[in-house]
């Protein structure tokens, strides 16, 4: 095992984790402020990716594609909040699960209706393709480095927004006492729509960014959604910091487990058996991590409740 290979895998894990963060941050905000479990968050991821692929196909511009992804996902989020989600805040979690599950069915089949079942492709723009030489002689794709940078910038921006801005103060106040901030004259329903659209936009951005390294297809959002749930269980509901740490932990565990567990088993087993057992265990590694966190801290690493 060389240092270069290890560093590459570390970066892969980091990139995967950062993209998970974009999903988990929206989910955890929506849960923290509105107390809503949103299964349809994966649909916004998919909508972002499809909007990006469609616009990139029509105009050839990757930046325009990203703008399209952000605005399409935010618009879909705002629309869904106004029409459906708004009616769910007072209801129990079962109703929220079912209604958002219904939204998944509608979005997924609707997309399949429009675009068909074949995957679309979104290309990495020329100025971001190719490798970059990092210190220590590591060749690493420039695009993936860009993803890490964009994700970290978004995390920083979110953190600043919540800590410093007026909207951020309202969000934190909404988490603690929604009657009180309504009594102080803040339009709480407008704030809810805004937060929901923001969460959807982040998911859409993640979908578009990842869509360029994977294929864009119906159903791409839900596996990521479930991983984001694992992240939130590990990090603690409602905590942006928990979402960031949880995402990176999950990203690293999944990527490094997939590479190194089979190698580890090869040390004392037949190669073919080791590969199959190692990869089976690697596919379960993040769930073991989740189980361990649950035993140790049932409300997650940074969860308050």
């Amino acid at each position, binding site marked *: 095992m060389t240092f270069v290979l290890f560093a590459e895998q570390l970066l892969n894990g980091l990139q995967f984790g950062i993209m998970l963060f974009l999903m988990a941050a929206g989910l955890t905000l929506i*849960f923290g402020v509105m107390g809503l*479990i949103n299964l349809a968050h994966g649909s916004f991821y998919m909508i972002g990716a499809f909007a990006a692929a469609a616009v990139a196909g029509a105009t050839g511009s990757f930046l325009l594609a990203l703008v399209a992804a952000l605005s399409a996902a935010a618009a879909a989020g705002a629309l869904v909040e106004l029409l*459906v989600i708004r*009616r769910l805040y007072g209801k129990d*979690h*079962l*109703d929220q*699960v*079912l*209604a958002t*599950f*219904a*939204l*998944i*069915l*509608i979005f*997924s*089949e*609707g997309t*399949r*209706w429009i675009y068909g079942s074949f995957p679309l492709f979104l290309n990495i723009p020329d100025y971001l393709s190719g490798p970059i030489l990092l210190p220590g002689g590591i060749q690493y794709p420039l695009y993936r480095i860009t993803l890490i940078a964009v994700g970290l910038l978004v995390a920083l921006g979110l953190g600043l927004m919540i800590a410093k801005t007026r909207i951020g103060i309202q969000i934190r106040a909404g988490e603690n006492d929604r009657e009180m901030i309504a009594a102080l004259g803040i339009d709480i329903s407008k704030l809810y729509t805004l937060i929901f659209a923001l969460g959807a936009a982040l998911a859409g951005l993640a979908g578009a960014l990842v869509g360029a390294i994977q294929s864009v297809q119906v159903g791409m959002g*839900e*596996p990521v959604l*479930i991983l984001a*749930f*694992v992240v*939130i*269980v590990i990090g603690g*509901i409602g905590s942006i910091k928990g979402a960031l740490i949880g995402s990176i932990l999950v990203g690293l565990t999944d990527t490094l487990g997939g590479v190194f567990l089979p190698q580890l088993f090869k040390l004392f087993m037949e190669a073919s058996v080791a590969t*199959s057992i190692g*990869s*089976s265990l690697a*596919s*379960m590694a993040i*769930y073991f991590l*989740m*189980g361990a966190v*649950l*035993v140790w801290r*049932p*409300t997650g690493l940074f969860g308050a409740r």
Partner: protein
Amino acid sequence: MVNERLFNLLILAILIGVPAWAYVSDEPFIITLMTRAVVFALAAVGLNIALGLGGLVSLGHAVFFGIGGYAMGILAFHAQTFTPVTEWPFVIEGTKSMPVIWLVAVVMSSLAALVIGMLSLRTAGVYFIMITLAFGQMFFFFTISWSTYGGEDGLSVYVRNGFPGLNTLDPIQYFGICLIILMTALTFNLFLAKSPFGLALNAARQTPQRVETVGLNSTRLKLVAFVISGAITGLAGALFADLNRFVSPTMFSWQLSGEIIIFVIIGGVGRLFGPVVGALVFVALEHLLGGLSDYWHIYLGFLLLGIVLFGKGGLIGMICGREKVDA
């Protein structure tokens, strides 16, 4: 408002009458469709015990359905290839006998429910939903990478397993087996709901504090309910696998977990016949709308949204009104 007991009798009449008519007029496809509905209903009866009685929103019941399915798949696979399942510490042979397969399915899915329940009941509410969903995904990915038993492609079993004294390949006889098991589970559910355990569980769902005050352990009550629930859904999985003579990782998929919840909700949560009505309606929609359009899930989505937003208590709630569970 229709009397719920009368409505349940009507459903029972449909369960017996439709296959009987199909048998007489030689429509084996209808019988298979009804068997599918009955097996789904059994899986949902299992979930209804956790969800309706215990208030546990499990989005991972496909785990138990899948374990039941793979119990059948693995045992039958070894029986048809004449290889033992394990050779150490003692030899376990495969089998083609349904009762043995059912027993293994029930035991294995109870064990899984025990472990998953112990971990996820450390939390409640929205955490519980996310964790059960995540464990479902864990089994899904595990079976995909488990190449010994077909991995992503799944396992085919060429001949349906046998039941002493019956020809299980005859659709109507296999339907009979499934219906009798469903009826047994419903009877069990009825007695469970009225037993001291069921009453305590019901109370633990509504006000856990009170139950704790009188000295009962509400978490343990819920855990037992979760295990019973998993066992019944696991049995349904074994029957489903035998119906299709095929198991694959899709039996573990999160969509299936969602569908099992949908059966319960369409029919009515906590109602004895809720899961049966839900499964019948679902299979009917799947057949009728599926014939009209490939995208029939979109209509299912709108129907579900309507039921959640506007209809309280599912179909039974709309037809029979808000009654206490009593059949």
